[in-house]
């Protein structure tokens, strides 16, 4: 494309159907404890 560079390959929608397994870390257990950012967690499936 001439005008647009798409920088990621994943589509969040594809993760919905098979998501929610709960294996990933609880968000607050890593380093935050006071300011939640869920998107910086890893999928562990």
């Amino acid at each position: 494309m001439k005008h647009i560079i798409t920088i990621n390959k994943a589509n969040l929608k594809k993760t919905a159907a098979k998501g929610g397994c709960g294996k990933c870390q609880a968000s607050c257990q890593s380093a935050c404890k006071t300011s939640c950012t869920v998107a910086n967690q890893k999928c562990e499936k």
Partner: protein
Amino acid sequence: MIHKYKLNGLNIVLDVNSGGVHLVDELTYDILDNVEPPFEEKCPEKVVEKLMRFYAQEDIESCYEEVKELYNDGILFSEDDYEKFAKYSVASPVKAMCLLVEQDCNLRCEYCFASTGDYGLGKRMHMDFETGKKALDFLLENSGDRENLEVDFFGGEPLMNWEVVKRLTEYGRSREKEYGKRFRFTITTNGMLLDDEKADFINREMSNVVMSIDGRKEVNDRVRKRVDGTGCYDRIMDKYKALAEKRNYENYYVRGTFTKYNLDFSKDVLHLYEQGFDQISVEPVTSEPSQSYALTERDLPAIFSEYERLANIILEHDRQGKHFNFFHFMLDLDQGPCAIKRLRGCGSGNEYVAVTPEGDIYPCHQFVGYDEYKMGNINDGTFNSEMKNDFAKAHIYSKEDCKKCWAKFYCSGGCNANNFIYTGNILTAHKLSCEIQKKRLECAIMIKAAKAAEEAEKAAE
């Protein structure tokens, strides 16, 4: 829904519902103000006419084609069709626990949300082994099919109750096989009582360790004080370095808090990096707005500039092969959490609970001391499943402000405790936290976009 912004000379477009991130030229940036689905076969004449003052017709038309293609690929202007999944957001197994093994502290940090250890309860307490054991049993029994159980030894200062930490770790390990589960122990410490024996145990048993320090000595010592009023920097820095080195600088964080006193906190992040740490978290203080160190809306411009400065420092370091990780800029655009996790948020009160030395259960460590949020007690076997359900339903579609926010799949509705403490309702977003969060996300995405742009340039050479 899309969110577009300019930062660091880059034009960035986020497609909120697919998570698509696009780096676009000026023309695309402008055309996106003028078009939306449903798309016509050709760029509408009125759009061409409007933009022809600045761009060539041929370019406008080819740009429209690209926008349309991304729309057809489902990564631009994609629909929000997640709400149906939110309806299934019901009570889950409890898989994570913040264990307040010590409700006392050997520091008197000015800004401590736990009121220097006692959580405002007026009594300083240690958790005894039996209570801790029951808490771990609670987790084993209530975790359903979850295999990984997370237990964070927290306080106050957990090293003040070291023998119990050790015994509970050993106890947890002794039950893993029988239940087919694995404990991931972590610990959050202020470092004052760290010694070789504790560091070795932590490095052997704890899957993550969080070491509290605010950055530069003068910044740290102004607020992180001992009981006699002196600062703790000199006492802890070398201990932290030794501990991190012994675990090969893996799975740890040095974690600080920034306040109104150090709005130039990028210098603190850099200071920690210069001391040899590469996993760094420095977070905004949580406090009453009336405190002298509190962050308020007036501080937002300074905070925003500082996050931008920090993002540039990180990019510049990366270019020189000096990588370090800033927790709040961490973002994996390809393999981050699934949409379901992003709907549900941090899991407090549902998948995650905090247990006090007296065995009281709260939705998370930040709710401790608020009686109305006491969920039950480990010792008498009570557990308020109704409250658990309420927390399970605290997802982005039950939070009015979040529904329409572009950042909803990144912060996932924010911190329920912050919402409650500042607004009185876990479902009402705390605006100041939101503004700070959104800026961090813009910076984090910009870092990814800048790297992609640099790679594209290299490839074109």
